[in-house]
């Protein structure tokens, strides 16, 4: 190694040290997306605990969905590993609050599908789109014969998930107490046997 190359290596390493130093001081923000506008809008963690009011909120939805998914995946029927076909029936809302129970079951379904341990059949809500598509492919004469999916090939679910959400609300002169109970069960469609059931309850108290 000649002296000039030693000097070059030295200066390169010095340059690298200096660059990494400047990166450390400027932080990672400079590598993020540019910010448009300077309005009073901030982005937060979607998983952050929300305690704005004591109505049903995002944290309740996430907690219920996560707790149920965890419990469901560990149930004997699913842990067996034969990827059963499940459909989601309705989760009844027995509260006086406008709670979209479908968004809870959607979360459960997404998390379970990600785990790879189950398959899902379209539920009654999505059935119209499913039948519309099949009818369009088969009855309009617009599709190639070989590519049109046949009517009568849909798979029936082995199990269905159903449940309900109930609440008890108590109002004191200075306290509002809300108790939510979310119950879910897995029913064998053929036998009608309840293979798994679980509950998740949440209590929220706020001072008025």
């Amino acid at each position: 190694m000649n002296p000039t190359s030693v000097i070059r290596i030295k200066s390169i390493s010095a340059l690298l040290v200096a660059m990494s130093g400047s990166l450390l001081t400027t932080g990672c923000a400079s590598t993020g997306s540019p910010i448009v506008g300077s309005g009073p809008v901030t982005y937060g963690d979607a998983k952050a605990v929300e305690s704005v009011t004591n109505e049903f909120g995002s944290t309740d939805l996430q907690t219920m969905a996560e707790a149920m998914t965890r419990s469901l995946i560990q149930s004997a029927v699913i842990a067996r590993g034969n990827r059963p076909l499940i459909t989601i029936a309705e989760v009844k809302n027995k509260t006086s609050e406008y709670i979209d129970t479908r968004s809870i079951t959607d979360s459960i379904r997404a998390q379970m599908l990600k785990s790879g341990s189950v398959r899902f059949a379209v539920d009654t809500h999505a059935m119209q789109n499913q039948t519309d598509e099949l009818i369009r492919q088969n009855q309009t004469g617009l599709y190639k014969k070989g590519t049109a999916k046949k009517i009568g090939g849909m798979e029936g679910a082995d199990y269905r998930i159903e449940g309900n959400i109930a609440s008890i609300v108590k109002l004191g002169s200075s306290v509002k107490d809300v108790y939510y109970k979310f119950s879910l069960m897995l029913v064998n469609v053929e036998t009608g046997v309840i293979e798994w059931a679980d509950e998740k309850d949440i209590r929220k108290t706020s001072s008025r």
Partner: protein
Amino acid sequence: MRSLSKVLALGGAVVLLTGCAGTMRSYDAELKQTVNHVATGNVAGALAELEKNNTGGAAGLGLGNSDKDLLYYLEKGELLRLGGQYEQSAAAWLSADQRVKEWEEIAKHSPGKLLGDLGSVIINDKARRYDGQDYEKVLLSTRLALNHIAMGKWGEARTEIKKTHEREAIIAELRSKEVEQATEEAKTRNVHTRYKDLQGYPVESLDDPEVTALKNGYQSAFSHYLAGFVYEALGEPSLAAPGYRKAIELRPNVRFLEEGLAGLDKRAHVGKRGHTDVLFVVESGSAPARQSVMIPLPVPYMAGGRGTVGVIPTSFPVIKSERAFMPSSITLDGKANLPLAPVTNVDAMARRALKDEMPGIILRTTVRAIAKSIAQKQAADRGGALAGLLVTIAAVATESADERVWRTLPAQISLGRALLPSGKHSMKLSGQAGEQQLEFEAQGKYTVIPVRLMGSHLYAMRPQSSVEMAAQATVEPPAKALPEAAAPVEEAPKPGARPVKSKKVRKGAIS
């Protein structure tokens, strides 16, 4: 000369004190004309009247207002809806909604701004920006939902329905804060804010059992029942249930509302092919006016270092209800009698809103009266008896309670529901001017048929188009269907009405 200028200056001060903008405008008188036009079926005349009162030209004379405010858009939307112009009506109401949203932002982030001027001396109630009564804000989104349904936009109706619940939550939060603050403020200022103490005030209008039975002044059984119906139509029974449940909570012991919830499961699972679930919304009359009534108020104030009591003429808003005629049933296709359930009384809601607002109004009026009495005293002391008299005249002339309310809203809302074979039908209902018949078409799985009785005129707001709901009829009904979904009508199959045969591709299904 000097004393005259003093008098003028003082007079000017009093006018400023009471607030100039809008104080000379009598909303009640303006809207009386508009409502009269509507009662005779002259929607175009009513719209022209509204525009005339809200154009810049007359503003300077105190006859109109160039600043098109929330009320202008509320009234305009309703008139356009009566005229069947749903698109334009929705546009006007969305302008009103924008203003309500601005109010909501303030209510959410800095409620102090709305509550802060509670004890304000300078501002006359009438000169305050009109933010709308709480029940008006809620009914605005309900009526927007009705417009969207009429145009076949059920998804947008859902958005409006969701907005209704969120709006109610914001109002509930703000009002609880307001009550707390008004009580506190009245205590510190030593003002009695019971309307029962006002000599000559028509207390019975606010103590009516219909008014006291209401849970609050802004939630209506109609809004929540409609929410239930829209969610049900969109195949979301878990959201429809709380809608029907809330309606029952707000108006207990009404069989019609109870059936809405009880029959939900059955209706959700067993659709009836070739049939339409029709919700009849029968509205009648117009929301009551607020009028100003003069009441002398004994006001304690300090003068010359000692406490004294003066009697100051003050004005308070009163609501005089006009009983709107509401038929108890409608006749369908000349045969079946469908009973109508009175579910919402906007008249009582308006009175309830005023009842809840009264402590704040009394507090503001008393504080203003004290300021006026001091001005009178000072004028008399400095400018002599004439100046005192002039200031008194100015004070009386500018004293008038806030009369602004959404007048073209209906006074009563009744509902009826029937499962009818899809297709053309007729309905008959008896109004003040005898029996009136109109034709309508039941399209799709669900539809809403709103009608409005105004004076001798019957307005029918037929849907422009009906959308086949995606969620329903997902599964073929079993060959042996369960007993038909709750239909309170003794249904007579219409001759010629054919049930739809096997499922074929719908028109327009290919995009």
